[in-house]
């Protein structure tokens, strides 16, 4: 069976500033923000891929490309083995959904819970809304006529999840679904998401900057840096023995109980308008070689894992 999601050199560039008429007349060069730059990923049916990256690494843009909220500027996107073209988008959208970070801003505040959940169906179907609400642990009688502001953060995020599953999609992009929630509710929502995946046979792309959460929920993880995937592989292998220097330093930056010292990389995530030449991590890398400044390393297979670093090139 083909993977449910497959991208080949997928690319999305945004204009860094608006090009006015005068800019065009005077021949000003457009500047591009390379949010997603030649990304190749595959997600198998039934698995959870954790997408880890710092802010501005392009992880949300990649998620939006996969649910067709954004159109790619280059490369190909295959959904269930079929190449996604403009006329295939409605078909893809029947089978994908997305849950956003802040439920209070992603749900219409003027609609009631049952209207919000039935919206993707196009018509109101009480049975399906009730079923979706029960699956996420909300009571139809108690909550269906309330509006988002009357509910707590955990409940609103449950509404967002119910809205995502009501159409029975195959693939859901979860964009930091728990980062706006409190510690005690975070575990509730994470466990709910894992149960739903079992029950409905879903496939997830779980976008997060919280590495511990990615470890908890994912089967495989992909680490993104400045618009590129730098490492991808089985979650246990990547976490126990990270290969890319960025992944290694990222792991040493995660606050963990039982380890008091943090050893973060120096410097900041580079600008995507003007990324450094060669490997994008080279200005912060402790193992820098001369080739890193000149040529970009390709993503290659090393021991069942994919990594983009000159240290591992034969």
């Amino acid at each position, binding site marked *: 069976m083909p993977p449910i999601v497959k991208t080949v050199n997928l690319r999305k560039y945004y204009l860094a500033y608006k090009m006015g008429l005068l800019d065009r007349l005077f021949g000003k060069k457009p500047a591009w923000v390379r949010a997603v730059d030649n990304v190749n990923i595959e997600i198998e049916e039934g698995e959870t891929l954790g997408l880890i990256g710092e802010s501005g690494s392009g992880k949300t843009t990649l998620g939006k490309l996969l649910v067709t909220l954004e159109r790619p500027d280059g490369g190909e996107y295959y959904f269930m083995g079929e190449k996604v073209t403009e006329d295939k988008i409605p078909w893809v959208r029947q089978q994908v959904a997305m849950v956003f970070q802040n439920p209070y801003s992603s749900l219409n505040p003027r609609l009631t819970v049952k209207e919000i959940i039935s919206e993707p169906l196009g018509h109101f179907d009480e049975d399906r809304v009730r079923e979706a609400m029960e699956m996420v642990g909300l009571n139809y009688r108690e909550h269906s006529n309330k509006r988002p502001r009357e509910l707590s953060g955990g409940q609103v995020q449950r509404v967002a999840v119910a809205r995502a599953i009501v159409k029975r999609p195959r693939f859901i992009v979860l964009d930091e679904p728990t980062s706006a929630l409190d510690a005690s509710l975070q575990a509730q929502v994470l466990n709910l998401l894992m149960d739903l995946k079992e029950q409905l046979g879903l496939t997830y792309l779980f976008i997060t900057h919280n590495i511990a959460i990615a470890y908890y929920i994912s089967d495989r993880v992909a680490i993104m840096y400045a618009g590129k995937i730098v490492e991808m592989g089985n979650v246990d292998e990547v*976490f126990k023995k990270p290969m890319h220097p960025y992944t290694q330093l990222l792991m040493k930056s995660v606050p*963990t109980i039982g380890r008091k010292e*943090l050893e973060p990389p120096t410097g900041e995530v580079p600008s995507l308008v003007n990324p450094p030449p060669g490997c994008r991590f080279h200005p912060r890398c402790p193992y820098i070689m001369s080739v890193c400044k000149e040529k970009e390393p390709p993503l290659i297979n090393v021991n069942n894992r994919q990594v983009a670093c000159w240290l591992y090139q034969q």
Partner: protein
Amino acid sequence: MALLSIKDLFVGYRTIMGTLHVLDDVNLEINKGEIVGIVGESGSGKSTLGQAIARVLPGNAIASGSIMVDGVNLLELSEKEMENYRGTTVFMILQNPFTSLNPVKTVGYQLMEAARIRMERSGEKYSEDRAYEMAIQALKDLRFPDPEIIMLRYPHQLSGGQIQRVVLAMSLILRPKILIADEPTSALDVTIQAQVINLFKQLSKEMETAILFITHDISLAYVISTRLVVLYAGRIMEDGDIESVIREPMHPYTQGLIAGVPDLSKFVSGKIKLQSIPGNPPSFLDLPSGCKFHPRCPYVKDICKVQEPKLTRVNNRIVRCWLYGG
């Protein structure tokens, strides 16, 4: 003697629905060089506690009790007298870094102003060259590659991480006795967060600054603090040495909180399922009777529903729970 000593602190907010009792019976002593992690969920009163110590509570707040620093009760000072304590005695880093700097003045102007205050209060004569030097040095300590350029920038020209580091640079210049940091890293990425955490630790070690680190992230509190204070519904539920609280939490709320933390150390030997505390945190409009945690507590007894337990000392720990005698 403790550097900061809070006794019977009560803070309420006047609203149209009546007075909300946001902090009740808070007693806390903090010594020089101590880093105290204050953890709690949103609406547990942890930011209010920080604001009360820094005297930056909103206008509708009422506070009683005492907050003693160096023998002075901060709550009794007039706004004008408080000015002399701000910055060098108590300094607060806000959650949203964009609100802590003046948007129409350059970073350099604001850092040099901090340097001037530091010099005046330590009895030195103000010299502009010396202030400039201090500001540049502080920016260098915060790993800004080109501090001269940052000095000329306005806050809106910097990223969130950069601004938070500028505010930290300001605290390096002011060298406050007490630094209150209200979720200072929640807008930052993990790698930048780790850089900032290391700076906090360095500050407390080198200058014996007492740090109150307010956060909802227990793993983060573990890494930075020497002591942990757990707040729930405006009350201190548990207070003790960080290692022992994390290893052997006594209060059922702390136990639930720690069981629910997705922390990498838990997944070393295979994946385990995270436990979660049922229910939601209470609203201050409608606080439960007795122990404020009883509706969510797995060990609830009859007495928990009627009478609120007092803070009791058990070994080296302070805990508010009927399981330990109340």
